């Protein structure tokens, strides 16, 4: 595959590994948080860890779109389906646990009409083909998935597609990163050590690199916007280590083949035309985060499922013992959770981090657990 395989090259990886080993100061630790699940996935799928010196520590952040959605919002989506609407959503969402051991896939098996779609266009198609039914698109994700939702809403408005609406759960990356950096766990207690950030790749292609300037400066943490390929991760690691060694805290862009400083202004325009900031939104793991999510503007309220339907406020909680919240904040590792690999596996996920291939529990379990078990054995 041209333009992809070049970024998975073993020879280059070895060269970079040698450079990183040389640059890393053996007397200190480098705790680097990858915000995005896409990075977590790449690190595990390609075994990037094996090429890193032992003092480079990946801290997995909350940037997995389905992981951060709190249980009450999933309960709401199931409720919409149970009221008779066709609920369309991305595949990864299907197995995320809701409260009372329910999930969209279980609700579907029980008779609700819940459909997996690959794009918002598929959801529009379902609405066109079922004019007598309410069709709700369960919209989730960061800035990457928001523009297509905006397009769908505009299209629905133009077509006067009266049976289509969006249950909006789009969230914002910079707000979440800032929230993590402001938390006592990072600032005062030192539970979470973060020396630098891998900035999101796809998200940054939309929002650009400028939004990270503020917290690089305010919190004095270097940020390197990194592509999702394994060589991107390695190159960015080298860049982060150099910044840390030199005491710099700048926003650097490794992913220049896609990300510009301004980002995709057309997409940003579409998003602000259709959406506005929510004053407060609950994240799994982070709790209520001010101005961290979007809602549909008044002009498009006809397509807002939250205005269109009566939705009961759910008080559903995470399964007892599930450490997803702490794992999403980087405060715990998947192996610190009692449920990990015992009752919670990708086949029977108890928490959201075990569902998506971008979730850190699923990545640890599916790609990396041979390493963990060996470590445990030697420790015993």
């Amino acid at each position, binding site marked *: 595959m041209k333009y992809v395989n070049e970024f998975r090259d073993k020879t280059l990886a070895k060269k970079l590994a040698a450079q990183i080993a040389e640059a890393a100061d053996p007397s200190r630790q480098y705790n680097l948080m990858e915000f995005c699940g896409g990075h977590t996935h790449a690190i595990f799928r390609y*075994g990037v860890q094996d090429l890193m010196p032992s003092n480079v520590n990946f801290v997995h952040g909350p940037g997995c779109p389905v992981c951060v959605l709190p249980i009450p919002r999933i309960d709401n989506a199931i409720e919409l389906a149970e009221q008779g609407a066709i609920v369309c959503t991305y595949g990864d969402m299907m197995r995320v646990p809701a409260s009372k051991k329910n999930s969209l896939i279980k609700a579907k098996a029980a008779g609700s009409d819940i459909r997996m779609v690959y794009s918002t266009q598929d959801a529009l198609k379902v609405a066109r083909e079922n004019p007598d039914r309410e069709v709700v698109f369960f919209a989730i994700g960061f800035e990457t998935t928001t523009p297509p939702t905006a397009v769908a809403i505009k299209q629905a408005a133009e077509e006067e597609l009266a049976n289509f609406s969006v249950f909006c759960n789009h969230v914002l990356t910079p707000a979440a990163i800032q929230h993590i950096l402001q938390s006592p766990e990072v600032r005062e207690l030192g539970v979470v050590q973060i020396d630098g950030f891998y900035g999101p790749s796809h998200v940054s292609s939309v929002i650009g690199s400028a939004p990270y300037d503020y917290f690089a400066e305010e919190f004095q943490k270097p940020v390197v916007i990194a592509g999702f390929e394994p060589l991107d991760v390695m190159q960015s690691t080298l860049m982060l280590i150099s910044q840390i060694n030199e005491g710099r805290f700048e926003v650097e862009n490794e992913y220049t083949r896609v990300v510009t400083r301004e980002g995709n202004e057309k997409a940003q325009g579409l998003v602000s035309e259709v959406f506005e900031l929510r004053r407060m939104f609950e994240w799994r793991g982070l709790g209520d985060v001010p101005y961290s999510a979007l809602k549909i503007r008044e002009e498009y309220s006809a397509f807002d499922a939250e205005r269109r339907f009566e939705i009961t406020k759910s008080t559903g909680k995470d399964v007892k013992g599930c450490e997803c919240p702490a794992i999403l904040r980087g405060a715990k590792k998947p192996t610190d959770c009692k449920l990990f690999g015992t009752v919670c596996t990708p086949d029977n996920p108890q928490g959201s981090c075990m569902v998506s291939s971008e979730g850190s529990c699923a990545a640890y379990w599916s790609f990396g657990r041979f390493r963990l078990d060996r470590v445990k054995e030697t420790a015993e």
Partner: protein
Amino acid sequence: MSRMEKRFPTRINIRKGTVDMTHGSGGRAMAQLIEELFTKHFDNTYLRQGNDQAIFEAPKGRMVMSVDGHVVSPLFFPGGDIGALSVHGTINDVAMSGAKPLYLSAGFILEEGFPLADLERIVISMAAASRAAGVPVVTGDTKVVERGKGDGVFITTTGIGVVPERLDISGANAKAGDAILVSGYIGDHGVAIMSSRENLAFETEIISDTAALHDLVADMVAAVPDIHTMRDPTRGGLASALNEIAYQAQVGMRLNEAAIPVRREVDAACELLGLDPLYVANEGKLVAICPADKADALLKAMQAHPLGRDAAIIGEVVEDDMGFVTMETGFGGTRIVDWLAGEQLPRIC
């Protein structure tokens, strides 16, 4: 006999007709469908016996039997259809024991309203596959379910075969030190199917690899009679097949990603959809495990056959009390190649 009236005064209109409930009722309509469609195309001496069962001589030796239900959607896809698939799938399950497949049965569950022209197309394809493989369909069954209770057509086939003496091929026989081989490019079938699904239409020239592997197997066991294990990595892909074997044999495996044959187009389609080719279905590939010192001979025998031309040695069986299948990635790191969990789903971000 001369006064016997004609059973079916007019022929079934296959071009325009559809399946209806009478085709499964056991009456004249069913008998006519069987005669004018199934018996006509599958035609062989066993079916001509006209009984509810096929009677045949039992060969000497250990018999093998396997059953496989086919529910593919769409029914027609690039490189094949449910008919050919239902013949190949069962022949391959029988052949993975090293056996020579001898006979097939076919059970059809038809949905009311299904076009007879499509059914005929499927039956013709099945008959062609069975004839090409030299394995006749000797008995069959037809049922009809009401509209909405099926997905057009479901086909269940059973295969019977006989294992040549001196062969002992089983998932449990894989031993540490053995070499792992695959007979060619993986993931073709799954990608061909996905490319033709309505909600996922993308253009590709990839066609399904659906094929009967018993001829390749015959060459392989002739060259290396002490093959320990064979399996066709269908649903769940190569990864799931290897995990099954590792569990059965209580061993681990170590793969080399760079050695696993994946077509560029399949790789690209998987990349686009966020899938992993190791988990994508195959219908004309096999995995073989044999003693390391026989691996080259086996590879040569495989590559000499058209269906094994792109065969490769992809890893080795290792001792591992945890039973992990691990892989050195093309990037130089190591990861687990786990069982498929749930269904493969595209990534969002």
